């Protein structure tokens, strides 16, 4: 305990033991921090490239699905059912945008409705929300929430089903993560559908087993589904055990900048209290710089575009 107190004192409080400057702010210690940050920066890049240990973004379909339904339920609306046909349509739309390098609801002669119909989902009413450049599922849904038109889509009472796609790719030379959300209500004669899909979703935790078994009893009605529809499992669900690189990098960045800010403030106060005069950089300037970066992290975290 004494050792811990002594170490913390050495790291944070200026005294004769650390040449009257918090040890964490010494040049040699800053070099150690830079070495650790370099390891983090390039290490996370390596993890991302392996595509085994890590994924770049923390946007998960199950989370998007959950947040969308929570948003609807907050408005007194029933939750949407997950449709793999709409998910197929969303995935094809995302791939089409990446292949043809556009970011729009309508592009290269295709409309969202073309993708939905091509997936075998005959709709009475349908809609689409797009997002790109977000790091976290919450940021995507918050972005849609803050836009009246996207919010209107999420809270439209007519919709019964929803499907998502999350895809990494380059748009206009910029590596990004695309999110496509497609809504729909089937034509009356085609309901109900997708019993096997819902069982798959239950297996990966997207819906409760009780819900899945309830739909299984209508298996005879599944004839309207296109061939191969049941094979689809969203990629992010398959990879749900992976480390999220951005979550890791964001948490460590916040912790590091927060630590520096605390050390600078403690050092400033203590140096004054002990009447220490020394030749160092201006702590006030460092505090402004680090505080700006911490605020900047918020913009980076929530910095995406919706359409």
């Amino acid at each position, binding site marked *: 305990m004494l050792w811990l107190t002594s170490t913390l004192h050495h790291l944070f409080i200026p005294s004769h033991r650390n040449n009257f400057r918090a040890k964490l702010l010494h040049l040699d210690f800053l070099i150690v921090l830079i070495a650790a940050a370099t390891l983090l920066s390039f290490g996370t890049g390596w993890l991302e490239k392996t595509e085994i240990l890590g994924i770049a973004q923390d946007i998960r379909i199950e989370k998007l699905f959950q947040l969308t339904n929570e948003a609807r339920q907050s408005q007194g609306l029933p939750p949407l059912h997950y449709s793999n046909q709409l998910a197929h349509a969303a995935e094809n739309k995302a791939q089409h945008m990446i292949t043809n390098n556009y970011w729009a609801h309508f592009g290269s002669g295709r409309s969202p409705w073309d993708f939905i119909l091509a997936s075998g989902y005959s709709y009475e009413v349908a809609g689409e929300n797009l997002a790109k450049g977000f790091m976290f599922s919450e940021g995507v849904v918050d972005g849609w929430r803050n836009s009246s038109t996207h919010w209107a889509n999420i809270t439209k009472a007519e919709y019964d089903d929803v499907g998502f796609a999350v895809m990494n790719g380059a748009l206009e030379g910029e590596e990004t993560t695309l999110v496509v959300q497609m809504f729909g209500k089937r034509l009356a004669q085609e309901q109900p559908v997708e019993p096997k899909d819902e069982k798959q979703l239950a297996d990966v935790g997207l819906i409760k087993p009780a819900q899945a078994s309830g739909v299984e009893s209508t298996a005879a009605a599944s004839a309207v589904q296109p061939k191969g529809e049941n094979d689809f499992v969203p990629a992010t669900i398959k990879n749900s055990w992976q480390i999220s690189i951005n979550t890791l990098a964001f948490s*460590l960045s916040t912790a590091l900048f927060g630590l520096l800010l605390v050390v600078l403030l403690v050092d400033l106060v203590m140096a004054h209290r002990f009447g220490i005069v020394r030749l160092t950089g201006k702590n006030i300037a460092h505090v402004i710089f680090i505080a700006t970066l911490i605020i900047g992290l918020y913009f980076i975290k929530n910095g995406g575009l919706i359409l």
Partner: protein
Amino acid sequence: MLTKRSITHKVKDDLHAHVLEYLLLFTSAMIFLLFLSLFRGQPSKQFIATSVFVLYYIVWGITHHTRDQSLHLKIVFEYILIGALAMIVLRALLV
């Protein structure tokens, strides 16, 4: 008689003595945040904005201490190392 002024006064004295320089630093910080917001969803542009801000911060530090007649190699290294640390950390998120 030796008097000890409060830390608030000490900080205020420093800010008053270099009001224009701190105003420039604060303004550049606001502009940096504005660009981060404008370049939402474009991490490579956000990284360029970060690089410019870090470079400005290092130049600001050297200029400030030169005008303050307190420039020392150790201080130059301090600004460079803190700037480099910020760049490397944000690289993990933006590149």
